[in-house]
């Protein structure tokens, strides 16, 4: 239990919690979930700003919270670095003084010089004398990150740190955090409700809903193989349907989807006849003009009608209907233009069976 951060929390009220996460040293773990899912409460519990009824929080060799032995180390005595959503800089202190306040472990004479080094590391040279209100959102965020790291924390906690800055600033901050990551040797917990942000920055993601950790895995694994309908929904998957196992063959599993048989990658854990939920990423639905018949064994060709086309930058998000079921697919803009796609049009699409993931029935 001495490696990284181990958190296990349990309570019924006022905020239900049944969360268990582990974050290894040097790893970035994203806590992802909708508003009210308890992700911030989990982070605040680690910081000692919230006390759950039951549980245990261990960081390295230090027990910070243990309800069984009534251990609850005060926030100031937990070596944590925390970046708040609104940054929470001290408004009356300069950027340099803000950072220096987190360096009480050093003699007073050394603090400002060391804070200056941190300021350089976050590319804010020459802005140390400015008050937070004289800095842009992105600069404030950098000061907040520098202040959190200046504490030389055993765990770094980031509470939606990118939500208060504009999109272009966010992009450059992602880049900087990615660069800084290589140097961070402590567990890093990132709270976010943005799946793309989590996928971009985290090694693993923990999906939270109503205070429960539903699944913790790599972003790829969560997108390809969510363990429940709810996780698939929370991961932003659009193509989720009910079905039934028709047969288990050697090369594939056959499922029934409202009267249409679909071949999917072999998933033997479901018995023939059992109800299932299946999900597929939008990238698993491919446009296939009728003249190009598929030869791939796991391709499922179905007839659909275009219902809705949404232009999203370089691509269209297209909703198509098959037997009253709506499928969503993304089509590059130039492809959509080449095939003159329009609402009401009938076409054939391919459902790539290897991307179809089966889950227990909802």
């Amino acid at each position: 239990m001495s490696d990284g951060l181990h958190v296990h929390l349990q309570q019924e009220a006022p905020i239900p919690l049944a969360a268990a996460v582990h974050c290894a040293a040097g790893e970035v773990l994203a806590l992802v979930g909708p508003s009210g899912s308890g992700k911030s409460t989990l982070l605040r519990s680690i910081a000692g700003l919230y006390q759950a009824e039951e549980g245990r929080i261990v960081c390295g060799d230090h027990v910070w919270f243990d309800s069984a032995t009534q251990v609850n180390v005060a926030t100031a005595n937990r070596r944590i670095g925390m970046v708040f959503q609104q940054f929470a800089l001290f408004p009356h202190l300069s950027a340099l003084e803000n950072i220096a306040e987190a360096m009480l472990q050093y003699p007073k004479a050394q603090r400002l010089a060391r804070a200056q080094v941190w300021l350089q590391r976050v590319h804010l040279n020459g802005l140390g004398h400015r008050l937070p209100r004289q800095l842009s959102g992105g600069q404030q965020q950098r000061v907040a990150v520098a202040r959190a790291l200046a504490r030389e924390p055993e765990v770094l906690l980031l509470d939606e740190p990118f939500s208060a800055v504009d999109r272009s600033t966010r992009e450059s901050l992602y880049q900087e955090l990615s660069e800084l990551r290589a140097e961070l040797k402590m567990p890093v917990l990132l709270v976010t409700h943005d799946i793309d942000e989590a996928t971009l920055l985290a090694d693993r993601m923990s999906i939270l809903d109503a205070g429960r950790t539903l699944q913790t895995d790599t972003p790829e694994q969560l997108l390809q193989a969510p363990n429940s309908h709810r996780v698939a929904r929370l991961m932003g998957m659009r193509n989720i349907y009910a079905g039934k196992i028709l047969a288990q063959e050697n090369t594939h599993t056959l499922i029934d989807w409202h009267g249409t048989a679909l071949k999917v990658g072999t998933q033997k854990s479901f018995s023939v006849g059992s109800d299932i939920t299946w999900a597929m990423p939008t990238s698993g639905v491919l446009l296939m003009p009728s003249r190009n018949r598929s030869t791939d064994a796991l391709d499922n060709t179905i007839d659909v009608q275009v219902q809705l086309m949404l232009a999203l930058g370089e691509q269209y998000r297209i909703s198509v209907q098959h037997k009253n079921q709506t499928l969503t697919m993304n089509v590059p803009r130039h492809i959509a233009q080449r095939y003159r796609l329009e609402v009401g049009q009938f076409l054939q699409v391919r459902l790539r069976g290897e991307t179809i993931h089966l889950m227990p029935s909802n």
Partner: protein
Amino acid sequence: MDWSALRLSLELSFWTMLVLLPIGIWLGRRLAWSQFRGKSMAEALLALPLVLPPTVLGFYLLVALGSRSPIGQAYEALFDQQLSFSFAGLLIASIVFNLPFAIQPMQRAFEAIPQEVREAARCCGMPSWRILLRIELPLAWPGILSAMVLTFAHTLGEFGVVLMVGGSIPGETRTIAIAIYDRVQAFDDSAAASMSAVLLLISLFAISLSYMATARLGKGRHNV
């Protein structure tokens, strides 16, 4: 011009302000950030001097501090002198009737400090005393200054409670407000006028200071 009355008023105002400073900071922080059973009742009790007629407050204070009360008897046993109609009695009364003037502006000032900022200080590893001195007091100081000025000015001008509890003993309990009343009763209009002018100027200066501080607090809030 009754200089001893002016000096007494200034001394009373100064000591009232000084005693209420730590009380106000402690109670103001607690009321701003803590939720506890009976909080509304506590706030109502503290605000009572704002609405209670000074004679009513003075009467109860007189009863509470009088020589037949436990407090009065304890004071007499310790210091061998009466608490009511003394400067010490006047000071206690002054502290009580100034509670809302000291606490409410401080409570508002502490409420204006975002919770995240206080939490960030804890996450930085700052001990409580350092958070108080380095973060909370600098951010709340306009409100604290405002509270102190209001307390000072209000004590200078208080009449009813002072008369009930202190009477009008020259050099001991006769404040400038009572001295003005005495001079008017004695048809000494010129003395009353000069003393009133002095009180007016001091009060105007103090209140101006308070408004300036409040304006800065508003600006500070906007910037947080």
